[in-house]
């Protein structure tokens, strides 16, 4: 896909996120929106997956370690055709298959996650299984920057580096905000790049909203042999919705009807601009 198409798709994913969280009257829009471009690139460009055959044996794997941003993952999966976009507003409703955090039984979801620090370990296990079985699939996992405060993340990083899992790509969504405030003030995990380097990762820093940089980073990750790669993507929490951007209040809160209208108007405007840019 060309960048413009990716941008348009990412904008649809953002609409899906806002619609899902509004429908749920709860959930995590901020970190879903910051990672929306990455979700889009992964599911529309990077990963070898088939919406018609979600369990395809040799598919690439993705584990959303920062599982609270399930709305972002679900919106990408729905737009990619794993399940109907119309189901997104049933998020978190009793009886809906769209659980508040990712559940392995949802089409396209490779691992249940949401208890922070655990998803990366499962991703490491999937990458190890590929190495043990001589299989070609790659494994991706996305962590929040606040999640790096969990000790298990570093247990997993130590193991992945030790085992030279070059089929593993760890993505850190560095939007700098966690529930209690800026990560640098709560319990700073900085410098993130130096830490992953110390655990024998190849580290790439990128702008999370620049598809050229995302594309180049994944190419570099695939070409990196003998060690896992960590892509630290510097992102804007709440990206695309004016009143949510860089505002920690929108980490885990749903917009009311009025706020939802404003948010969707923001995203419609971005969509129109992208249409114009394509003409």
């Amino acid at each position, binding site marked *: 896909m060309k960048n413009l198409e990716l941008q348009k798709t990412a904008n649809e994913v953002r609409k899906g996120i806002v619609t899902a969280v509004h429908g749920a009257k709860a959930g995590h829009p901020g970190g879903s929106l910051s990672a929306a471009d990455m979700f889009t690139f992964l599911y529309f460009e990077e990963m070898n997956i088939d919406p018609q055959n979600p369990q395809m044996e040799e598919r690439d794997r993705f584990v959303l370690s920062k599982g609270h941003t399930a709305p972002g993952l679900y919106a990408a999966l729905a737009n990619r055709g794993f399940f109907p976009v119309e189901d997104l507003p049933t998020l978190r409703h009793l009886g809906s298959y769209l659980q508040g955090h990712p559940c392995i039984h949802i089409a396209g979801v490779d691992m249940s996650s949401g208890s922070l620090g655990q998803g990366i370990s499962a991703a490491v296990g999937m990458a190890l299984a590929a190495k043990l079985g001589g299989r070609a699939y790659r494994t991706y996992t996305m962590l929040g920057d606040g999640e790096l405060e969990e000790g*298990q993340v570093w247990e997993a990083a130590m193991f992945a580096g030790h085992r030279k899992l070059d089929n593993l790509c760890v993505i850190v969504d560095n939007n700098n905000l966690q529930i209690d405030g800026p990560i640098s003030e709560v319990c700073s995990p900085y410098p993130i790049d130096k830490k992953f380097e110390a655990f024998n990762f190849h580290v790439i820093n990128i702008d999370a909203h620049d598809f050229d940089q995302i594309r180049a980073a994944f190419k570099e990750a695939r070409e990196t042999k003998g060690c896992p790669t960590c892509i630290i993507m510097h992102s804007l929490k709440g990206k695309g919705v004016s009143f949510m951007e860089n505002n920690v209040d929108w980490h885990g809160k749903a917009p009311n009807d009025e706020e939802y209208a404003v948010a969707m108007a923001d995203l419609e405007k971005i969509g129109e601009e992208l249409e114009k840019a394509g003409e």
Partner: protein
Amino acid sequence: MAEEKIIKKVATRESYGNALKELAEEFPDLVVLDADLAAATKTGIFKKAYPERHIDCGIAECNMVGIAAGLAAAGKIPFVSSFAMFAAGRAFEQVRNSVGYPHLNVKIGATHAGISVGEDGATHQCNEDLALMRTIPGMVVMCPSDDVEARAAVRAALEYEGPVYLRFGRAAVPVINDRPDYHFEIGKGTIVREGSDVTIVATGIGVDSALGAADMLEKEGVSAEVVNICTIKPLDEELIVNSAKKTGKVVTVEEHSVIGGLGSAVCDALCKHYPVPVCKIGMQDVFGESGSAAALIEKYGLDAKGVYRTVKEFI
């Protein structure tokens, strides 16, 4: 001088390591994970034969459980090994959320359970694992009583699709199930001695103690029925209820806290189907301490004499 019967003794952790090695050819997806304890958990036996299928995760049990979850999601059958304290205790939430909730095909081989750990003392004597593991939906929980049962349980766990917790001990224990008609099935208990006055439901090393106690009771005219429960969950409720109907009194024996383990599971079943008085033998809401396994088992009333005394008082 009375002739002493020679009884073969094997630690069930040894049975675990041997079984893994024996089953490796038949189950090519079987892999074994350990956290720097391969020598103690006896997965070292497997490691020696199949080094490429043994994954040492270092001293990081929570990550090890997560890696096992990922391996299982990709088609492997991982056996995660550590001491019960760390496998079920430290990594409880990982077992719950990364293994139990997605119902992945991960087997947890937990060794050094209970006070028979001995000299290491309370920090390493896990008397809570059965309680913790029982609470996880869909988790099979097994506590073999000897070498024969331990090896059978490992095979059964391999043949079963879904999460399984297996509890093994450090100390060598008598082989009591070595008979031609021995048959193992997940969820099925066994009446190892018939009786009519009291039912003793036991698990793990408690089975041997219960059998010894039954001998002593018999000499005093008390007929005790001994039920071996290897699978704590799902529990063979029918067998226990039928025995309770026959005897009217039930004693449970486990090398575990009396809170949440076999005794609690038996009470749950009896409360629902056929309430009778129950006496729970086990760790009475206390921590263990350093000492030899035999001395600790005796001190906490888990040997044959201790079980005999408690049963006598109870009936």
